[in-house]
């Protein structure tokens, strides 16, 4: 059976894939930029709009990192405002469980779901670090080994609050003066090692019941968590082989929770560069990569692996001749990618091998080994590739990350989406009103 593709639009992130130096690049904070991208996504019948999170300005070498876009708005506030200028598009926000309490997050998502008439989604992340915690009154109030356990119970507790209203409590009977059928509507009591809360949840059941739950963790625990509780996974396995392996793995975990394959959508993040021809797109992709990785950025990215100050190195020269500094990575703070270098020595060895065999400078090496675009080609090629990956069960769709704000999705919407629609693998109109309708979950 031919699968239908799901697509989402990721607002360009606070990292080096976002090219702020492009003449077309607009504001990352003015609301008009968010409106523009969201309206493009809705015009193209995308499933949802997506916002990432970062609760402390990133630092490197003890200074605020200034080479990438810096600054972002509050997630809930922007999504609620976007609900005013869109009518079908899902609105997904990344909200972590460490610097919030279940009651307030449940109340915010339930409110967003009401205010958007059923379009709210929560990308649950469990990241924490003491560096970010310095911005919060509750930061660091738990010993390190308890933080992950708290994160796990956070989602279930928040959902328990949301579920405290069944949906049939409101009588609104003017004649008899009965607004509420049940005097205890919204009652909850929850006690575990982390939360000891009780009372009445103030938001009656929202249009979707529960917001759509997205999950982004890649660990075994994260995958299990997604299989048990999530409606979609924001994965980073966008290639055929890795995608298929990941897809099979997480879908295979669903049965033991009594869930079917359709109930969990696998949506890798994906970047793209389009061109009139495939060759044209390749050229453009190369230009974009050089915009994304300036000489200065290459040195900074290399420092994250080397865990050392490399400011004296020439980005057009060879790699440092010493090995990465062993021990806790302290050079860069406030970014997830640092934790991705799990074995810095092995990675450095691999990079050195590539650089030596191809005679690459630091900058050219970094361009090659970090963040190459997932889809490069003419609209026909990209449409074909996306469909292939979905039909081959490497994904159920993609969360697309444009590299220019706010117009970076326009070309995709205008050229790739119609081709997918012609093939009958992507909707030409929204079939329903809620994000659950769009995702079929």
């Amino acid at each position, binding site marked *: 059976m031919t699968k239908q593709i799901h697509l989402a639009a990721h607002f360009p992130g606070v990292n080096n894939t976002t090219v702020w130096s492009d003449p077309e690049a607009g504001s990352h904070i003015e*609301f008009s930029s968010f409106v523009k991208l969201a309206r493009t996504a809705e015009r193209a019948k995308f499933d949802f709009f997506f916002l990432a999170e970062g609760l*402390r300005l990133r630092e490197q070498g003890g200074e605020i990192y*200034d080479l*990438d876009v810096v600054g972002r708005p509050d997630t809930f*506030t922007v999504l*609620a405002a976007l609900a*005013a200028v869109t009518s079908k598009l899902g609105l997904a926000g990344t909200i972590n469980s460490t610097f919030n309490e279940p009651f307030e997050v449940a109340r915010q998502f339930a409110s967003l779901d009401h205010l958007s008439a059923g379009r709210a989604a929560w990308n649950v992340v469990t990241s924490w670090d003491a560096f970010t915690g310095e911005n919060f009154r509750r930061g660091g109030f738990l010993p390190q080994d308890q933080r992950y356990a708290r994160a796990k119970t956070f989602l279930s507790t928040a959902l328990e609050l949301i579920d405290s209203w069944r949906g049939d409590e409101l009588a609104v009977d003017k004649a008899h003066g009965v607004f509420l059928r049940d*005097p205890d*509507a919204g009652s909850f009591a929850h006690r575990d090692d982390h939360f000891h809360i009780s009372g009445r949840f103030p*938001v009656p059941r929202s249009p979707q019941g529960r917001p759509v739950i997205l999950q982004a963790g890649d660990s075994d625990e994260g995958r299990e968590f997604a299989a048990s509780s999530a409606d979609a996974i924001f994965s980073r396995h966008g290639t055929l082989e890795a995608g298929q392996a990941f897809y099979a793995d997480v879908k295979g975990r669903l049965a033991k929770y009594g869930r079917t394959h359709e109930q969990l959508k696998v949506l890798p993040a994906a970047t793209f560069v389009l061109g009139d021809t495939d060759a044209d797109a390749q050229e453009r992709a190369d230009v974009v990569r050089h915009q994304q990785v300036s000489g200065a950025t290459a040195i900074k990215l290399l420092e994250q692996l080397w865990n050392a100050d490399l400011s004296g190195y020439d980005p057009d020269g060879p790699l440092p001749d010493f090995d990465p500094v062993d021990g806790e990575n302290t050079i860069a703070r406030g970014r997830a990618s640092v934790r991705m270098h799990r074995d810095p020595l092995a990675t450095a060895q691999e990079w050195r091998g590539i650089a030596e065999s191809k005679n690459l400078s630091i900058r050219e090496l970094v361009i090659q080994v970090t963040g190459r675009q997932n889809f490069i080609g003419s609209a026909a090629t990209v449409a074909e590739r996306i469909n292939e990956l979905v039909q081959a069960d490497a994904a159920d769709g993609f969360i697309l990350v444009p590299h220019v704000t706010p117009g970076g999705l326009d070309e995709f919407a205008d050229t790739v989406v119609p081709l997918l629609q012609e093939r009958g693998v992507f909707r030409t109109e929204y079939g329903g009103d809620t994000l659950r309708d769009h995702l079929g979950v």
Partner: protein
Amino acid sequence: MTSGPHLAVALDGVGWHPAAWRLPEARPEQVLTAGFWLDQAVEAQRGLLDFVTLEDTLALQDDPFNPSTDGTDRVQGRLDSVLVAARIAPATEHIGIIPTAVATHTEPFHLSKAIATLDYVSTGRAGVRVRIGWTPQENAHFGRRDIGTPRLADAHLGDQRSDIADLFDETADYVEVLRRLWDSWEDDAEIRDVATGRFVDRDRLHYIDFEGRWFSVKGPSITPRPPQGQPVVATLSHAIVPNRLAARSADVVFVTPTDRADAARTVAEIRDEQAKAGREQETLHVFGDVVVFLDGTTATARDHKKRLDDLAGAEYRSDAHVFTGTPGDLVDLLLDWHAAGLSGFRLRPGAVPHDLTGITRGVAGELRSRGLFRNAYEADTLRGLLGLSRPANRYAA
């Protein structure tokens, strides 16, 4: 602008009277929809009001002045007011929007960027009313801290330590953190200097390094300085302790005088505290709160209120003065109190839409016909409407 009073409306469900939802024209089944709130904000904007406020707590509605046996005869359930504000902002153009936030149980870092973002999505019309969360119900929803046994009555004890005074002192710290975070980016911090590859000038970003008795916050904010520089901060006060919070921290304070003399006394007390806080040079608007039941004649206004009281089975009571009568008579009262020192009024409509339009068309129209209210919006920002200049950044050299 004229020398007349500022005028705002306090939105709370279908109105402040507990039986307002039972009137035929009320739309209680829509209180959880965006359209319900947008319609009220648009009506307030049509009347050229300065701003709307949105009531909120971290619990189900509870009206201690008009107690209910089990709450089933009242509108129950409400949405996060900051998100309601964000939802109505892009669909309005001129009116200020002031949601309510509870300082006691929330993160100042989150609220600071939320209100900064509200200021972006409203292009400069954001404010926030900050309140304490003193009830055991709200505290149990978080289960995070021991707030002692705060009693509202203790807020009248000026210099004596009490649990309620601690909550207000903590709120002053909280507002200080909001304000520092709003200033933590200088206006021109984003430089986009292609030549050097720098997006920001990090010398124009500032750690706020706040350390107080209850919490510490490092900063800078993740959100650049909002359009107004400092969004408007409001509080509600009935006593000396919250008066001090207002004097230290607020741009607007809502008070609840019972008559002209009480209004004059309250203003004098707040001005005194303002001087003690070293803020006598700064504008602190004192707005009088009045609950209003309006109609074309005094008799029909009384009928309107009596109908509601009969439905509720009790006479309506409030912390604020309750006015029942014509818009013209209300304007007489407001101007009398305005002369006593109140710079504006936040009217609480008894029932919506009846008393909301009574305010936006009746009261605003009556003031306008006397030459004491604007004929068109004269500023693009809430600070502008309130005569507040865009403040210098405390961290700018």
